[in-house]
C-alpha cells in the first residue's frame, strides 16, 4: 500500500514541477528576477548537457547555456501562449537551436577548420572497423576522435544524428523541435548516415 502511494506520489511530482515551472515563468515574465533565477537553477544542468552533446570545450558549453537562457528570457511570452506544455521541453528546444546556430557559426570560422586524426586515432578507428559484432572488444572511440570525425559533417547532419541516436527522439519529435517537415528529417538522417559511413570508409 505504501509502495503504491510512493509510486503515485512520484508520478504526480512531475506535473507539480511543471506547474511550478509555468508559475515561475509567469512571474519571471512580470519582472520577478528571483523566479527567473529559480528557473535557471532548475534547468541549467539539462541545458549544459544539451550543449555538451555538440561541444567539447567548457567555454563553448557555457556560451550555449548563457545564450539559451537569454533567448528564453526574452521569449517567455511565447512560452505562455505557445503549444509547449512543459517549460523543460520548451527550453530544450531553445538550447538545441542555439547549439545548431553555434555549430553553423563555428563551421564558418577559419579556426574551425578540420583537425587531422593522429596516427594513433586512425589506428584505433581502423581496428574498431575491422572487428565484427556489436560486442567487439578493443579500445573504444574516444570523444576527441569522435568530435574530429563529426566535424566533417554539416551542422544539420550532426544535429539530426545526435537527436536520433543520442536523445532517442522520434522523427515527428525532431520535426517539431526544428520546425522541419517529417520527410526532411528522414532525408537528412539518411544522408547524414551515408556521409558518416563515407568518412569512416577511408579508415577501413
Amino acid at each position: 500500500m505504501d509502495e503504491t502511494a510512493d509510486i503515485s506520489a512520484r508520478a504526480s511530482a512531475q506535473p507539480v514541477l511543471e506547474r511550478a515551472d509555468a508559475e515561475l515563468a509567469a512571474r519571471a515574465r512580470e519582472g520577478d528576477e528571483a523566479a527567473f533565477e529559480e528557473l535557471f537553477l532548475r534547468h541549467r544542468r539539462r541545458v549544459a548537457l544539451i550543449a555538451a552533446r555538440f561541444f567539447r570545450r567548457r567555454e563553448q558549453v557555457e556560451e550555449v547555456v548563457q545564450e539559451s537562457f537569454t533567448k528564453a528570457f526574452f521569449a517567455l511570452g511565447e512560452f505562455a501562449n505557445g503549444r509547449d506544455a512543459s517549460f523543460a521541453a520548451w527550453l530544450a528546444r531553445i538550447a538545441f537551436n542555439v547549439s545548431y546556430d553555434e555549430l553553423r557559426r563555428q563551421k564558418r570560422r577559419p579556426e574551425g577548420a578540420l583537425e587531422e586524426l593522429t596516427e594513433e586515432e586512425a589506428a584505433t578507428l581502423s581496428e574498431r572497423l575491422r572487428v565484427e559484432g556489436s560486442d567487439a572488444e578493443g579500445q573504444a572511440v574516444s570523444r576527441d576522435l569522435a568530435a574530429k570525425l563529426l566535424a566533417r559533417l554539416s551542422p544539420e547532419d550532426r544535429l539530426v544524428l545526435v537527436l536520433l541516436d543520442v536523445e532517442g527522439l522520434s522523427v515527428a519529435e525532431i520535426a517539431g523541435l526544428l520546425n522541419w517537415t517529417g520527410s526532411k528529417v528522414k532525408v537528412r538522417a539518411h544522408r547524414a548516415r551515408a556521409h558518416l559511413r563515407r568518412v569512416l570508409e577511408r579508415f577501413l
Partner: protein
Amino acid sequence: MAGEKFSDGREGSLERVAREVIRASAAGEGEAQAAAGSPFLYARVRARIEEERRRREEGEGWLALLGVAWRAVPAMAVVAVLALALFLSSGTGELTPGYGLGAEALLGERDGDFEQVVLADTRTPSNEDEVLSTIIGEGENSK
C-alpha cells in the same frame, strides 16, 4: 555469395562504428557538470540579458525614428503637390525674367571694356601688376 557476406559485414561494421562515434561525441556529462556549476554563470546570464535589453531599446529608438520619417513622407508629398498646384494656378507657370539669377543680376551693370580686356587675353594674369598694366595698356590703345 562470399562477396555479399563481406559487403554485409563491412556495412554492419560501418554502421556500428558510426553509432559509436555519435554516442562518443555526445558523451559530455563531465563538461556539462563543470559548465553548469561554473561560478557567476547566472551573473553572466543577467549581464547578457541587460546588454540585449539595451540593444533592443536602441533598436526600438531607431525604429521609432524610422516610423516618424515614414509618416512624414506622405505629408511632405502632399505639401509638395499643394505648392506645385499653387504655383501653377498663380500665373503662367513660367519664371519671369526679373526673378532669374543670371550673370547680370549677380554682377550688376555690365562693364563692356573690362570684360573685353579680361576675355581678350587668354593668358591668365598672374599678379596684380600684370592686371593693372594690361588695363592701362588697353586704355592707351583705345585713345
